[in-house]
């Protein structure tokens, strides 16, 4: 257990480092969120920068981003006010002047002293933008701040809208790859160097060789065009049946926008899952092969145990261990893959927000999505470590993997 927590701590440190890196690069890089086609007048720009604390020094900005920052009297004096770390006055007033941004003109935006978790959670449920207080509570208390390009939208809201869209496809495809890939790898190992082995390994290879940015369009083409044509021919021309709508003919397989339905999971999951499948088949095959050749399996056979029992009891754990270690890096594959499927199938999700935030220089949105993606990675790695300690008793007692 100590090992797991140590790993978790290391990951957290790495996240903070990554955040600092992203935070500083984006502020050092040329360009900024406010220089659009028509740059705002200098005084408004100054106010905007002060409003987003961009006029402060970089360390202060970063600390403020992490831990929260006091409300600053920006509009009236025209210069940045004092900064109070973690001591946020009750119902302080912040206003922004500037007529171009009419959404925000002279609005009284409230800053609360604390962001109680219940209030924070309730924000995920209710969505009345005008009733929300402006909070600069810092990332560590769950506040990602306001988006910089769409200035009346909270990054939290973006995340709330985007995260389910990403997880919706990421989790099923991971499960798909695991629950298909591991048995395939075990079969391949059990029937090593036979046709079964060859079939399993090459089936797994398909996804590795055809990258998902090619696989997506090809599947759309095959299912949308070819299946549609085939069913049209079958029902209308050949069977002389009723004319079905195109949606019915293609089995409604192509996800479009937000419209849902379980069938829409099929293509994205397939595209995302097959990208992982090959590696998982290979790893579980290698793990199972090693176990099958091991002395302890020979011992088990000498005990007169049948093959199925040996596979399930003696080979299962060592066979899936390599797959479990791969689950850490897999998070990166899933994240990049979900960017691709969001683009290919025009799905809403964190990935597209991430890309647009990066290209639009929306600092807060980019930081927010990065945090969420990194948390995804951390959680997956945490699960990996838990699984690892559960699978390998040697770690449980010795405290580190050998």
């Amino acid at each position, binding site marked *: 257990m100590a090992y797991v927590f140590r790993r978790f701590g290391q990951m957290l440190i790495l996240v903070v480092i990554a955040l600092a890196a992203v935070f500083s690069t984006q502020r050092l890089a040329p360009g900024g969120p406010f220089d659009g086609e028509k740059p705002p007048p200098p005084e408004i720009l100054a106010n905007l920068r002060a409003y987003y604390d961009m006029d402060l020094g970089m360390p202060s900005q970063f600390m403020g981003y992490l831990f929260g920052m006091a409300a600053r009297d920006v509009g009236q004096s025209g210069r940045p006010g004092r900064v109070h770390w973690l001591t946020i006055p009750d119902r302080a007033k912040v206003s922004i002047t500037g007529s171009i941004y009419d959404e925000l003109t002279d609005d009284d935006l409230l800053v609360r002293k604390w962001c109680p978790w219940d209030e924070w959670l309730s924000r995920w449920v209710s969505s009345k933008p005008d009733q929300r207080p402006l909070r600069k509570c810092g990332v560590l208390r769950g506040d990602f701040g306001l988006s910089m390009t769409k200035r009346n939208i909270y990054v939290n809201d973006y995340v709330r809208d985007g995260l389910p869209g990403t997880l919706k496809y990421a989790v099923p495809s991971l499960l798909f790859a695991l629950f298909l890939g591991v048995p395939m790898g075990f079969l391949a190992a059990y029937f*090593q160097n036979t046709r079964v082995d060859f079939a399993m390994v090459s089936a797994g290879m398909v996804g590795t060789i055809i990258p998902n940015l090619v696989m997506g369009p090809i599947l759309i083409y095959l299912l949308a065009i070819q299946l549609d044509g085939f069913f049209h021919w079958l029902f209308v021309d050949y069977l002389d049946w009723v004319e079905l709508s195109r949606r019915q003919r293609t089995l409604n397989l192509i996800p479009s926008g937000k419209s849902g339905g379980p069938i829409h999971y099929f293509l994205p999951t397939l595209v995302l899952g097959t990208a992982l499948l090959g590696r998982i088949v290979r790893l579980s095959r290698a793990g199972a092969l090693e176990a099958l050749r*091991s*002395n*302890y*399996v*020979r*011992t*088990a*056979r*000498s*005990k*007169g*145990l*049948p*093959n199925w*029992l040996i596979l399930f*009891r*003696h080979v299962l*754990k*060592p066979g899936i261990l390599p797959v479990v270690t791969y689950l850490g890096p897999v998070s990166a594959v899933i994240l990049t893959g979900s960017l691709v499927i969001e683009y290919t199938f025009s799905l809403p999700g964190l990935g597209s927000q991430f890309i647009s935030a990066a290209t639009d220089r929306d600092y807060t949105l980019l930081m927010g999505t990065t945090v969420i993606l990194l948390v995804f990675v951390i959680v997956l790695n945490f699960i990996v470590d838990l699984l690892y300690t559960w*699978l*390998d*008793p*040697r770690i449980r*007692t*010795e405290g580190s993997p050998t």
Partner: protein
Amino acid sequence: MTQAILSLRDLTIHFKTPDGIVKAVNGVSLDLREQEILGIVGESGSGKSQTWMAPMGLLADNASVSGQALFEGQDLLSLEPRALNRVRGTKISMVFQDPMTCLNPYLSISTQMMEGLRFHDRSISKTEAKKRCIAMLERVAIPDASRRFRQYPHELSGGMRQRLMIAMALLNDPKVLIADEPTTALDVTIQAQILDILRELQAERGMSIVLITHDLGVVAETCDRVAVMYGGRVQETAAAQALFENPQHPYTIALMQATPRVEADAETQRLAAIPGQPPNMRVPPPGCAFFPRCPLGAPDLCTAATPPLEERDQDHFCACYKADAPQLLKEA
């Protein structure tokens, strides 16, 4: 003479490898008699382990086996997997060389011990099985058995693991125990303990033990009868005492000279290594496998055909054309 319990008849094992067929075992016929400890001696590559893996069905997939291994009227080599599973682990058990790798590191000792017991006899309850396992652990002198029972293999020392292996093998009260170099990986002091345990248990339960080893000392200490193997064949079998007092085969003699002894003449006599290499079993030498390294080898006689096992003395067989080998060697 007591009866044979497990008889190998003309056992031949070949392995298909990418570089050719390895003829590991070539026509071994051997009897394991009731209630005896049979020592199998030979250097690595002599096929001594493979010979006894075969009746257990534990050979690698690329092995092709011919011949017979008769046990209780059945030929183990031609049994179906299911029928074989009813024999191995219950009537014939095996203990392996390296206790560090022969136990599954991912499973607890309790799981690994109880599975063999409960799979073969479903009527045994969990508590009953546990009781029997712990009793067995105590029998092989594992201290604090009930705590050890709950642990994992990596928490045990090497000697303890080998004792655990023995306990596991004997749970079902087998008639035959095949011990494949059970002491090779262990310290000398622990070796003696393990051999003691084996001998005690053999006397106590009246089972037969096959003790595969390359260590003549272990054989002299433990075994009733010895078979010397070289190049995938039995070269000499005899009662242990007879073999040590009156070795017949040149290989056996060379082997004994290559074994360090604490005796008076050890000072004057240098340890004689056997020159040359063990035969390449992809292309075994024609005729007698030991011929290329044999000091007595006669080119035409020994390479013409493999020498058959002939009875030299009562119950003392030797496969060599030179009937007077010991004499000749002494003269030279």
